């Protein structure tokens, strides 16, 4: 009756939705493991309301025989775990959608939805399995059956999750899962619902993690040995990773009273020679601005992970936006050097966070890693990052008896020592200071010192991360994006098949890589895609290069672009 993927498509888009606290996330984790274990590429991303119970959250899982890394609107299979489907999901259903669920438990609202309803008596099966809680597992089992995923993956998952509780819990979950698997197999053999994808054996070697883990792994691979923060969505995942793996990686970690303490502790630790990372969202960075400015004048390395969500102020706590580029570029008072990275892929998030720690150390200044809620909660399969061979650069020198922390240096980078390393005295100051770090009000000194610090921008500019060009080198039309939209725009363009059109993605947004201007100039027509209302990258480009990008595809509704939305936007400007 229903067979996916449809037509030329190479992926199946499955959306799970349910109330918060209903375990949608468990099913999501389980499903991702299952489909990857069955040999398929997978992408998952969730959108959720800012509430602990109730509401309606959803997770999109795309399964494909080829790597897949972007969010689409299309829903092939919807699995509602409860009623109360919100409009943002309803609008995405069409006649091809199959809704898999328990008609009795879900009630009437499904009668008028488009698509085909496939009834599975999840509630009664769950009762049979031992209780309502098993409905999730049974639903996941149905999918596992449809994908012919090996059972032991499920068992391994349950053992990992519940093994510490009891063998019995694992067994009971497995029993429930098998009920689902059975149903799934039946559906497939009857031809009621069938998934026909070609597995890719290379998937087995690959790993799956999300943006929060990518940033965290990049941090520890870059030698991060200190982390503190105050919980704030969507940046908390990094804090949690550090807490849970502090012993594995030897990280001094603390959840502190506020973001002001977080940045100041990080700077204290940096002064002692640690490699600190703080993680927060825009609201937290607002509070940290004074400390970031301190990092600039005191020349203390620190990496700030800024996971964006919509603002101003508290904005939309669990939603996404690319609205804080200007905060990262301009936040903090006074003039001082800095860098802002905005990774477009998980691989890049690992590599650039690692690099952020090195660059902070080398230039003794704050470095931002700019992500967002969409990116932090997206996961997909990728090759194991070869971080074992990446260097952790250390730029700490021993302090001789006449050591001066802010010794004038040709390139602006004074040799940095730390208290206790050598006999010299090490002092840092938030005021304008002399070479020893003491407060000294002298206009000439001020001029020299500020120039010394800003001089570091030259070095920083000489090693920017070049933008990525996707598509024909001899393009005449260029689509520009930055940060987390990379793969969405990439897929949109692939499907649009516009002639002479290429994509330029910036993963370093400040300072802008020198190559950017050349790329822009080659194009006769440039369109920018940004997840904000004012075109912050365009504005920065205008300021830094004078180049004006007038055509902009923007979104600021609180959800990341879907491939279809980008397509529609680009079609308007380029077709």
């Amino acid at each position: 009756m229903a067979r996916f993927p449809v037509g030329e498509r190479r992926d199946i888009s499955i959306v799970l939705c349910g109330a918060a606290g209903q375990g949608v996330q468990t099913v999501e984790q389980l499903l991702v493991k299952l489909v990857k274990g069955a040999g398929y590429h997978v992408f998952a991303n969730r959108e959720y309301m800012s509430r602990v119970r109730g509401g309606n959250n959803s997770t999109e899982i795309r399964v494909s025989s080829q790597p897949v890394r972007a969010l689409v609107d299309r829903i092939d299979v919807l699995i509602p775990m409860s009623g109360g489907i919100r409009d943002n999901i309803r609008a995405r259903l069409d006649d091809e959608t199959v809704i898999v669920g328990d008609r009795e438990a879900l009630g009437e609202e499904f009668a008028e939805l488009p698509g085909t309803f496939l009834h599975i008596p999840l509630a009664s099966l769950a009762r049979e399995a031992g209780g309502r809680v098993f409905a999730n597992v049974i639903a996941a089992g149905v999918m596992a059956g449809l994908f012919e995923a090996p059972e032991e993956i499920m068992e391994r998952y349950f053992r990992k999750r519940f093994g510490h509780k009891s063998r019995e819990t694992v067994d009971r979950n497995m029993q429930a899962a098998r009920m689902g698997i059975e149903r799934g197999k039946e559906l497939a053999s009857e031809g009621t619902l069938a998934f026909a994808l070609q597995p890719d054996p290379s998937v087995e070697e690959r790993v799956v993690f999300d943006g929060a883990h990518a940033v965290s792994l990049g941090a520890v691979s870059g030698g991060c040995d200190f982390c503190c923060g105050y919980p704030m969505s969507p940046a908390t995942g990094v804090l949690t990773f550090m807490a849970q793996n502090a012993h594995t990686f030897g990280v001094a970690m603390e959840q502190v009273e506020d973001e002001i303490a977080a940045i100041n502790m990080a700077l204290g630790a940096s002064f002692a020679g640690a490699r600190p990372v703080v993680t927060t969202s825009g609201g937290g960075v607002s509070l940290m601005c004074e400390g970031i400015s301190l990092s600039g004048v005191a020349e203390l390395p620190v990496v700030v992970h800024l996971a964006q969500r919509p603002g101003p102020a508290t904005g939309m706590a669990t939603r996404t936006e690319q609205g804080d580029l200007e905060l990262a570029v301009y936040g903090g008072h006074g003039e001082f050097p800095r860098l802002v990275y905005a990774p477009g892929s998980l691989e890049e998030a690992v590599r650039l966070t690692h690099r952020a720690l090195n660059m902070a150390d080398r230039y003794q200044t704050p470095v931002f890693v700019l992500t967002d809620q969409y990116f932090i909660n997206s996961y997909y399969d990728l090759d194991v990052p070869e971080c074992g061979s990446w260097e952790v650069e250390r730029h700490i020198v021993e302090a001789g008896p006449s050591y001066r922390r802010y010794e004038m240096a040709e390139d602006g980078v004074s040799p940095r020592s730390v208290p206790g390393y050598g006999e010299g005295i090490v002092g840092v100051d938030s005021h304008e200071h002399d070479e020893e770090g003491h407060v000294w009000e002298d206009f000439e000194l001020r001029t020299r010192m500020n120039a010394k610090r800003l001089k570091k921008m030259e070095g920083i500019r000489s090693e920017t991360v070049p933008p990525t060009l996707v598509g024909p080198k001899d393009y005449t039309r260029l689509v520009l994006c930055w940060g987390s939209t990379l793969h969405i725009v990439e897929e949109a363009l692939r499907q649009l098949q516009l002639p002479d059109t290429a994509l330029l993605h910036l993963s370093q947004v400040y300072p802008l890589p020198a190559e950017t201007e050349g790329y822009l100039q080659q194009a006769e027509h440039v369109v920018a895609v940004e997840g904000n209302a004012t075109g912050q990258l365009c504005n920065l480009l205008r300021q830094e290069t004078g180049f004006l990008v007038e055509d902009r595809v923007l979104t600021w509704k609180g959800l990341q672009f879907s491939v279809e939305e980008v397509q529609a936007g680009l079609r308007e400007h380029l077709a």
Partner: protein
Amino acid sequence: MRDLKEYELDVVDVAWCPGCGDFQIMEALKKALAEQDLKPSDVLLASGIGQAAKLPHFMKAHFFNGLHGRSISNATGFRMANPTMPVLAIGGDGDMYGEGGNHFLHTIRRNPNITNLVHNNMVYGLTKGQASPTSPLGFQTPTTPEGVVNAPVNPIALAVSLGASFVARAFSGDVEQTKETIKAAMQHEGYALVDIFQPCVSFNKVNTFKWFKDHTYYLEESYDPWDRTAALEKAFEQERFALGILYRCERPVFEYQLAPYGERREALYKGRPDPGKVQRFIEETYV
């Protein structure tokens, strides 16, 4: 005992007013360091902003002169990354109890091994005489022309009630005793608050040297600082204020419990990263 000259800087322009209590606190601090045989390169002085917080610019030691109110956070971060070097966080009552109030509360809860010297002159010195969190009721200043109406912070009662592991009060007019108290605080393992009465000759005409002299007394020999109830009683005395160690208790030191430190306590900068570890972790965790 080391020579006090060791702590002197070659060139220094001390920006305190003649007669300010800050001078005696600095002298007491130098003596306390000398008597403990600590070289200038053996200790870190962390401070914020204010007259008191300028102290690290007037003597020799490692220093972190950061932002207004944040020095105990800087000091805590430093200890988290280097749990071997003694650290003093120094500042005024505005710095520590006003702008830094939240950090003050939470540092007490954490109990890092930091000695916190608060020059308590009950006024904002650097910004020229506004009311501070410890200014007495009725105290008239340019920003409180009709007198302070907010109840003053009682730092001793606050610290004792939060379970600070060492709480003492000193008076800058008595250098010898202030030095002894600073020494005891530094030798204490954990957070140690020393609230030091310090006359501001320029902006506080109420709480003068004489006033402090008349309104303080030393705790008797028999006083038991391990008794929390007794400490709270002392903390609430209104007429005359007790000087000495008012309270102490034993609590685990915050930084010693962090993941990098077990048996071995060594500054993090000495650690050598193992790049292969992360890759192995990824292979084991996410496949």
